[in-house]
């Protein structure tokens, strides 16, 4: 008899499980878990999990065409889910630069960056980014994920200590695991708990924090965290995936905003958010980048970033510097949306950034609500356990400079209408 998930009660059986229920199993066969997982997933999909990974048939603009996966039909939605913060992924100049690189270099780099995969455009991107970040050197990685993975694994060893914020991204957690260093997590944005976790530690220490956290949209208290790290002789890695190119007077991130760029040892960021492309980078001293170049396995055991993407990102970087009004527009949009949501009594958690969670706090209702939002013409992704803690489910709004005020007002009207109908507001 096949392993089965027996629905004891049709109204509760699917929600009694989630992905974490199938992560661990003991058996004599690696594949023994596949059937119970798929039995659950088939039921879960019909009850709301179809809302994940729905394919878009257009660019990630403010209005998209989506292939709805329940009834298999194309629908047009107002998009507040893509982290295209400056709308650069579809700018004509960026597309033209990518096309020119496609004609010149072809599609891929066809090699590891330490062997044959480094192309002139990669060096141009690294030099341009180093000038922008006012750092000695930049090292480009094929993804933001591989940047943290490779950097932490390159530097840390068994017996060393990594202390990261409890809300740290999976790439940081996985890099720490790969390094085999000792790992502790301090309570989110709590310098006093960072102090507690560092106290008494000897040897090499690394503190890892993020500029803006991707689920709650809150900013780290960088000055206090830096002070604690320095007091304990720890190096600091600041991941600005969701804050680079949009925070700070010149777009150099939260570190610039707080005037602490020179206190940060490793500046990490990605090209997939504000710059609308793909890839990641480390910015720091030349000696650091030279060392990491030689030891980051996720970089040298991977094909280099596509030259087409590198060229597009390089153009995005030029636009960021030439058009500061994009950042101003983004923050105007954020302020406008926050005002509207506050007036309607929407719970936005601790967010102060362009990432605005709409807190639902009900893991069972959120998928129904997401379906209704889609029906009302709004594309908002539900976020629930295990991506966030139980009953802190939310929708995550990503505001873009490309949104018009009318679109934001339309989004608020649709959102508030559905939430009132569900008794959330």
């Amino acid at each position, binding site marked *: *008899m*096949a*392993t*089965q*998930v*027996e629905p*004891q*009660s049709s109204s*509760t*059986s699917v929600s*009694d*499980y989630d992905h974490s*229920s*199938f*992560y*661990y*199993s*003991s*058996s004599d066969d690696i594949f*023994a*878990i596949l059937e*119970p997982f798929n*039995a*659950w997933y088939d039921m879960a999909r019909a009850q709301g999990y179809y809302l994940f990974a729905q394919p878009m048939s257009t660019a990630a603009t403010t209005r998209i065409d989506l292939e709805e996966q329940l009834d298999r039909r194309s629908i047009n939605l107002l998009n507040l889910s893509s982290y295209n913060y400056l709308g650069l992924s579809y700018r004509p100049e960026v597309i033209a630069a990518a096309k020119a690189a496609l004609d010149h270099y072809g599609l891929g780099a066809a090699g590891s960056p330490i062997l044959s995969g480094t192309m002139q455009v990669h060096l141009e991107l690294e030099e341009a980014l180093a000038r922008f970040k006012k750092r000695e050197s930049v090292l480009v990685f094929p993804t933001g994920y591989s940047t943290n993975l490779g950097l932490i694994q390159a530097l840390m060893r068994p017996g060393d200590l990594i202390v990261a914020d409890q809300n740290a991204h999976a790439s940081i*957690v996985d890099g*720490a*695991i790969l390094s085999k260093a*000792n*790992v502790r*997590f301090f309570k989110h944005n709590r310098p006093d708990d960072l102090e507690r976790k560092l106290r008494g530690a000897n040897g090499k220490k690394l503190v890892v924090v993020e500029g803006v956290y991707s689920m709650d949209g809150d900013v780290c208290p960088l000055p206090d965290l830096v002070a604690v790290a320095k007091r304990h002789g720890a190096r600091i890695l600041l991941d600005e995936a969701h804050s680079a190119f949009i925070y700070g007077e010149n777009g150099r991130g939260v570190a610039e905003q707080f005037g602490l760029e020179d206190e940060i040892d490793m500046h990490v960021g990605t090209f997939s958010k504000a710059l609308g492309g793909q890839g990641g980078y480390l910015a720091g001293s030349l000696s650091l980048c030279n060392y990491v170049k030689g030891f980051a396995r996720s970089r040298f055991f991977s094909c280099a970033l596509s030259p087409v993407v590198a060229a597009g990102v390089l153009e995005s970087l030029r636009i960021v510097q030439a058009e500061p009004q994009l950042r101003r527009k983004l923050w105007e949009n954020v302020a406008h949306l926050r005002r509207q949501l506050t007036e309607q009594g929407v719970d936005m958690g601790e967010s102060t950034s362009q990432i605005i969670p709409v807190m639902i706090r*009900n893991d*069972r209702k959120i998928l129904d609500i997401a379906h209704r939002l889609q029906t009302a013409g709004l594309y908002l992704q539900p976020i629930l*356990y295990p991506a966030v*803690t*139980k*009953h*802190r489910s939310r929708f995550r709004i990503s505001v873009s400079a490309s949104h018009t005020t009318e679109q934001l007002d339309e989004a608020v009207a649709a959102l508030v209408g559905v939430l009132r109908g569900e008794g959330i507001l």
Partner: protein
Amino acid sequence: MSEAGPLASLRFRSCIGVFVELPTEIARSILPGDLQPVELYHGASVLSAMAFDYQDTPFGDYRELALGVAVAPHVSTASAMPKSAFFPFAVASTSPNARRFAKAELHLPYHQGEMELRIDWVGDTASAVLLDGDRPVVELQATEHERRDVNQLYQSFMVDSAGLWTADILMTARFSEHEEELGSLEIHPHSFTSALPADDVENTPFREQVMREGTQSFLAISRLAGAPRP
């Protein structure tokens, strides 16, 4: 489950549970070699503390507190997928008769001393204190979130001189679970808690569960192996 029905079916007024982080090295020191601890993240496993307020059982009304480590469930083609699995390593009971039955039939690791378990409710907050005389041994507090009716399958692993056992346990109750970090767990030095260095047990649970007006049914017990590997 045998054709005659569950091995034991116990009604309860409440089951209050808190789950806290426990260093994986401590978890491994508690577990027999055949069991793997579940990790929240690298290096951090899960300690559970569950307080039961049983009523109208074959042994009358009584209370129990169980400390356990979350482990990887055993998946086989013959049984349903459990929601989660635990290795209870210390159980205290206020009923000598229940204790004798469960030790013999369910292979649970009972503490032999007489202890008192106080359970109090103030609104949505439940507190449980395991006492040896007037000395607190384990103190836990959990709050309720939104409630719903559930039938949930859990797996328990037990070890005694006869071997390693596994039991399927069905919990039917009004159920609440959340991760708002409103509860607490205090472990005090005592023979009951000797496996746990107090400094290594987190005081704030990452998860709190409350079950009310339910039934705990031990559906089936089977022996997985002979005497466990050390």
